[in-house]
């Protein structure tokens, strides 16, 4: 732990030195054929956008000696992609980006894979979740809204979300457990659909990621009530006439303590050597230095936590435990487990 911290301080404080050292450090191993970048989700979604962003940045700045080829393997809520990486033992030319389905898919479907079947590389960012309502409704705070939900009686209010037994529904159940409100959860295919369903008042609230709902927010159709994180988002640029991401209170501040962050991290094939992992960590560090990446992080109001090594695998192990607990309580576990 101490060692890792020291490394970060070194990298941060003496960036120039690190940059000159970097080539010698990476000279040990280079990919010898194109790198397959698996996306365990469909084209156009959040993970897909991020992976293609990385592919584009790497190509533009010539960060990899071999091209990166992006492949979508979305079948079975992403199980197809994870199984593919799990089965390519020792192949250093295959990486995968994760979303929460790393935890939720094996738990909900019983498909046999686990993050331990792959090699953790790095956490790129964490995606935030915000509780949204239609701007034409009278609810200004989470309390207003949740009181209305409770007063309306069970199942009268509809929560829209992406997929079933995945992050959006887990968050919904967590909110229900904590506040006693009871929603009807309606699963849709993608986050963009969900935001538009809220604008059209086909659902009463959503827990969209910032990037999925920002356009409708700026157009004055949606209202954010609170962000499901322990601290506010840092971005202070005004998104609407009077609000920035930073002006959205945390749910904890407003009286109900639900937190959820979605992992946007990288794993690679099992059984690879440390030098392979180091190579990709180096590439991703360079990707993060680019203005395009920083701009992308700000647009999507991401939590830009970066982790590697033991720190990262500890985080993932904790997140897995948390998901197991949340899903067990919600009754989402597959019968075979």
């Amino acid at each position: 732990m101490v060692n890792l911290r020291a490394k970060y301080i070194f990298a941060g404080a003496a960036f120039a030195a690190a940059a000159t050292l970097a080539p010698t450090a990476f000279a040990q191993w280079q990919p010898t054929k194109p790198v397959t970048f698996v996306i365990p989700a469909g084209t156009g979604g959040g993970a897909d956008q991020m992976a293609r962003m990385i592919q584009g940045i790497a190509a533009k700045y010539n960060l990899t000696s071999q091209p990166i080829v992006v492949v979508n393997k979305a079948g079975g809520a992403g199980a197809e992609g994870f199984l593919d990486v799990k089965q390519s033992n020792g192949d250093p030319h295959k990486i995968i980006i994760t979303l929460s389905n790393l935890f939720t898919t094996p738990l909900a479907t019983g498909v046999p894979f686990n993050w331990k079947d792959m090699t953790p590389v790095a956490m790129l960012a964490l995606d935030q979740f915000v509780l949204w309502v239609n701007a034409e409704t009278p609810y200004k705070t989470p309390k207003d809204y949740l009181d209305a939900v409770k007063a309306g009686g069970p199942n009268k209010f509809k929560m829209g979300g992406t997929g079933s037994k995945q992050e959006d529904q887990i968050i919904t159940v967590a909110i229900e457990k904590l506040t006693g409100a009871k929603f009807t959860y309606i699963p849709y295919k993608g986050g963009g659909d969900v935001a538009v369903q809220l604008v059209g008042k086909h659902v009463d609230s959503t827990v969209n990621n910032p990037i999925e709902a920002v356009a409708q927010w700026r157009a004055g159709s949606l209202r954010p009530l609170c962000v499901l994180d322990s601290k506010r988002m840092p971005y202070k640029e005004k998104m609407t006439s009077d609000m920035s991401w930073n002006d959205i209170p945390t749910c904890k501040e407003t009286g109900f303590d639900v937190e959820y962050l979605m992992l946007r991290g990288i794993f690679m094939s099992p059984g690879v050597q440390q030098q392979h992992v180091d190579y990709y960590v180096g590439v991703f560090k360079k990707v993060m230095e680019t203005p395009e990446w920083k701009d992308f992080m700000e647009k999507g109001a991401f939590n830009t936590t970066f982790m590697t090594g033991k720190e990262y695998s500890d985080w993932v192990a904790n997140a897995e435990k948390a998901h197991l607990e949340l899903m067990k309580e919600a009754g989402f576990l597959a019968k075979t487990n």
Partner: protein
Amino acid sequence: MEEIQALFHGFAVVLQPFNLVLMVIGIVLGVIIGVLPGLGGANGVAILLPLTFSMPPTSAIIMLSCIYWGALFGGAITSILFNIPGEPWSVATTFDGHPMAQKGQAGEALTGAFTSSFVGALVAVVLITFLAPLVARFALRFGPPEFFAVQFLTFCSFIGMGRGSPFKTMASMMLGFAMAAVGLDTVTGTLRMTFGWSELLRGFDFLIAVIGLFGIGEILLTMEEGLAFKGMSAKLNLKVVLQTWRQLPAYWLTSLRASTIGCWMGITPGGATPASFMSYGIAKRFSKNGDKFGTGELEGVIAPETAAHAAGTSALLPMLTLGIPGSPTAAVLLGGLLIWGLQPGPLLFIEQKEFVWGLIASMYLGNIVGLIIVLTCVPFFAAILRVPFSIIAPIILVICAVGAYTVHNAMLDIWLMVLFGVIGYVFKKLDYPLPPMVLALVLGDMAESSFRQSMLSSQGSLSIFWSNPLVATIFGLGLILLFWPLISWIMQLAKRRAVVSSGS
């Protein structure tokens, strides 16, 4: 007239030489992508997306959207020549396009398909130019019950399709529904009918089924019937284009209906594939020559192609104004917007005028350029049919196999394709209709999830399907189409009675 001014500014942007070159490159690539089955427009655009990073966003979207137009055009080529739909939205084109080619009218069918594609696109672009904000608001009224009503309408408009036994039609459709249900169920988040076999996780892909049922099935049939293509006598000059154009105005009503269906399905967003099926079904129902559909009617090519292109084009509208993609390709373009630092949504039209109007102008120009390119190639495409079967059949098989593999990068899909080929052959021999199965496979999944979403939000009450005028109207239309044979019979009876009574 603010729009016209903005549009001309857009033309100025598009007509820069750099952008024009990108446009032609995009169209040509798109046609190639459209011709190759499996490598759909969405895949093609996704693969090229990172290459556009160093371009200005307007140039990038011009190139990528031109790939999309090209793919829309190109999908028709193999459908007509070889009965292999290059794209899902060209499946309905095979129903009459391929019989036309077998009759030696490949040139006419291609010209009809390309021209009506263009007409559909043009109607949709005009709609986008002048009615964008208005239309976008209409799309917001579509929730799960409305979507289900639209899908119901598609099925109803198609149900009388089979000439043969209604039981065979039912069997074929139910088999399609069963296959659509394999894989992950989005409503409960659990796996269905995979029997613990992880290869089945992704379910049966519509594209693979179509490549097998139509493409491989057709090759098997041709082998049985004597190892030669019918329709080698296709005319090989550009005169055929002009001759076909002379016939087209007679079908103005079909085109109008198809454009309306297409625009509506693109915006709502139902997508190009259901639009083409619905349009074909309705054209067959209301055409004077409805009985001859399926034997090589030009009208049966015009209807689905016009609707598919109108839907494909208008699908970009909800993407730009609302940030919801009306088609898988639009979804990838949407990701592109975000990567280029543009935020799709209601403010895009205000904040990024140059980009939006550049794109709209490129829709006009791109479709004109595309039409010219594909029309000049008609004799060339038709000439492919003169290549001996023993040379071209293995090539088609290889292309089909590559296409099936590309969909998911999975070997199993190639075996599935072969299996579907055998099913297609057996179905034809036993006179079971294929279209109902394909339709159920492509729409079954969507219809099921909209139905269950509706049931969730109404707490299980079916009354949600007549809870507002919009959904009630669509449902009513569906029911009318479903019982159309009965209704027309009653109407005829009433008429005859009126004649009899006035006569006496």
